[in-house]
């Protein structure tokens, strides 16, 4: 009888029934049947979706940045005037082959040989000495440098001298300021030399 109830739960066994009744407080209660499953379903997909979205956004931004950079570069190249010149101050060589040319400062249009090394449309100014000459050279590569050589008029020479004087004064003042900052005094010789 007792085995019958213990095995099949049929019949009666007051002792086992009492135990069952007492232990029923610990019985499994079907609350939230598979609460864990939705988390498991969602969690593996979230990072994948996030990764894909992030990759797409990153790729889009990269493409936009590249297209913008290319467009800016092309537009700047196209907007640069064809006949723009650059002024180059170069040291006048004393033993230059074209000795027939006077030692007076000259203005030449310089061909834009290094245009690919610096931003388009920019002008380069190089000062190598006070006795520099200005040469204007044509920007186009096809034209030879000698074709653009033209002697300056007197007005242009006067203007050039005034410009060089102004530059000299400015540079000497800058040097005084620099020496003051550095704490070194400026000698009179230096000043007179600079003024000259």
């Amino acid at each position, binding site marked *: 009888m*007792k*085995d019958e109830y*213990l*095995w*099949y*739960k049929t019949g009666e066994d007051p*002792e*086992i029934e009492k*135990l*069952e*009744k*007492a*232990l*029923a*407080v*610990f*019985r*499994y*209660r*079907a*609350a939230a*049947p*598979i*609460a*864990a*499953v939705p*988390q*498991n*379903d969602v969690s593996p997909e979230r990072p994948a979706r996030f990764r894909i979205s992030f990759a797409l956004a990153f790729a889009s931004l990269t493409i936009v940045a590249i297209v913008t950079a290319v467009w800016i570069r092309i537009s700047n190249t196209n907007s640069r005037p064809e006949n723009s010149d650059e002024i180059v101050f170069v040291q006048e060589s004393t033993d230059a082959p074209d000795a027939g040319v006077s030692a007076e400062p000259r203005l030449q249009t310089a061909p834009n040989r290094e245009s690919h090394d610096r931003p388009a449309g920019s002008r380069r100014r190089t000062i190598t000495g006070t006795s520099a000459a200005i040469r204007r050279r044509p920007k186009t590569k096809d034209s030879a440098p000698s074709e653009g050589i033209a002697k300056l008029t007197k007005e242009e020479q006067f203007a050039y001298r005034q410009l060089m004087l102004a530059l000299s004064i400015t540079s000497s003042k800058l040097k005084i300021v620099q020496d003051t900052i550095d704490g070194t005094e400026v000698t009179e010789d230096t000043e007179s030399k600079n003024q000259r």
Partner: protein
Amino acid sequence: MSNSEIARNMFLFGPKTRTNEATVPTEAHLVDRACAGDKEAFGDIYRMFAPLVHGIVLARVPGDDVQDIVQDVFLVAYNKLDTLREKNAIGAWLVKIARNQAAEFYRQSRTTEELSDDLTSTNNRDAEAREILVAIRELPETYRETLILRLVEGMTGNEIAERTGLKPESVRVNLHRGMELLRKALGVGGRT
């Protein structure tokens, strides 16, 4: 727990399971469907085996943590369902996972101690229930699990055998000997 609740639980996990055995899909079929992504099939597996897992865990772990560990067991099972070779042996597989999760619980919380019965009991009835549960937990593992599945979860001997994969004869012996040891531990009855 009221008598109506006990009756409802008995209905849920007792006769109903037995009468529906002919109509419900087989375990292997449910496992195949769950592996294919059928959440409803895994829900059926959960409803079918949750009392079993609960009983296995309850035989080892303090009552407050049992429900969490049961969830962990099914979470592990859901993630590793593809690794199950014998689809019809999912019960035994879940029992193994439940034992491992219970052992993992003690590895991760060595300092956790269950409060004594005097402190945690709110009334005499709960105290009596805890005293019985403590006595069952002190039995050998084989008897402990079988008795909890029978007395706490309300499963019949046949259901225990089917769910755990044990032979019915073994379950019968475990129940019989376990009850003898429990009676001795509680000092009740007189039958041997």
